[in-house]
């Protein structure tokens, strides 16, 4: 098992490459979902305001 983590002396290179890849992929997943959720929330706010028949203020949008 230790041998696996040592990567034949290349541990620092191999694991940092895989680590950065994992981080970048996770950030991309998080960002895509956050944007979708943010836009859904905004559309919901605008929809409720329109249903109430009143002009939204800049702050509310």
């Amino acid at each position, binding site marked *: 098992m230790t041998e*696996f983590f040592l990567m*034949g*002396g*290349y541990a620092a290179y191999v694991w940092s*490459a895989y680590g950065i890849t994992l981080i970048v992929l996770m950030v991309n997943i998080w960002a895509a979902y956050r944007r979708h959720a943010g836009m859904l929330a905004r*559309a919901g706010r605008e*929809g409720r305001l329109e249903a109430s028949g009143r002009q939204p203020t800049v702050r509310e949008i």
Partner: protein
Amino acid sequence: MGFVRWFHQLASPPYVYRLAGRLAPWFAVSGVILIAGGSYGGLVLAPPDYLQGDGYRIIYVHVPSAYLGMLAYMVMATSAAVGFIWRMKMAHGLAVSAAPLGASFTFLALVTGGIWGKPMWGTYWQWADARLMSELLLLFLFLGYMVLRASFDDREKADRVSAILAVVGVVNVPIIHYSVEWWSTLHQGPTIARLDAPAITMDMLAPLLVMIVGFTVLFAWLLCKRLQGEILDREGRARWVAQLTGGVSA
């Protein structure tokens, strides 16, 4: 006829929004399984290289990242062109969604390449290498596309001007691919995409192919989610969006 109908449906925001929402979970599950399996194959099952030992295992994240950067660019440029020619908003929306994904995969390709280069070439970076320069240009094209868009208040104008940049930049994609053949410098030549058989044994190649497919499926997943967000951004005030969020009853 079926194709024409389908093409028209692809111009309809609610149709594309629901299609993307339905596809996303399938891409998510299969992408994660493929990448997990490919990583296990690349890190554990594949034998060490006779020359680079275990150091070569960086290939399993480096090559898929580089490939995805170019694929994302082609998706971005093609849909931007379709949007420009047929004035299709959904196509521009797809191009916008592909840009940050392509930028991050290209960034990954550069970083993992640098990490791989240090023990094998003795340096993280070489300014004179054509592959490295054309890959860096790819990153700048993605970033330039996003910055250019952000400089317009009018979204329609941003769509049209940024589409021109995206299409012109396509020239760089074959340059990236052939750079290692046209200018023989530090970066090694092609391993898989050659006219003759791939220059890699099957037990090393299989995990790489699994990773490439896995990265592609993950890209498709995130493209779906980003497109959904982009559609809501563009269509926020449409009636179908209000129904979706419960603001207006159907």
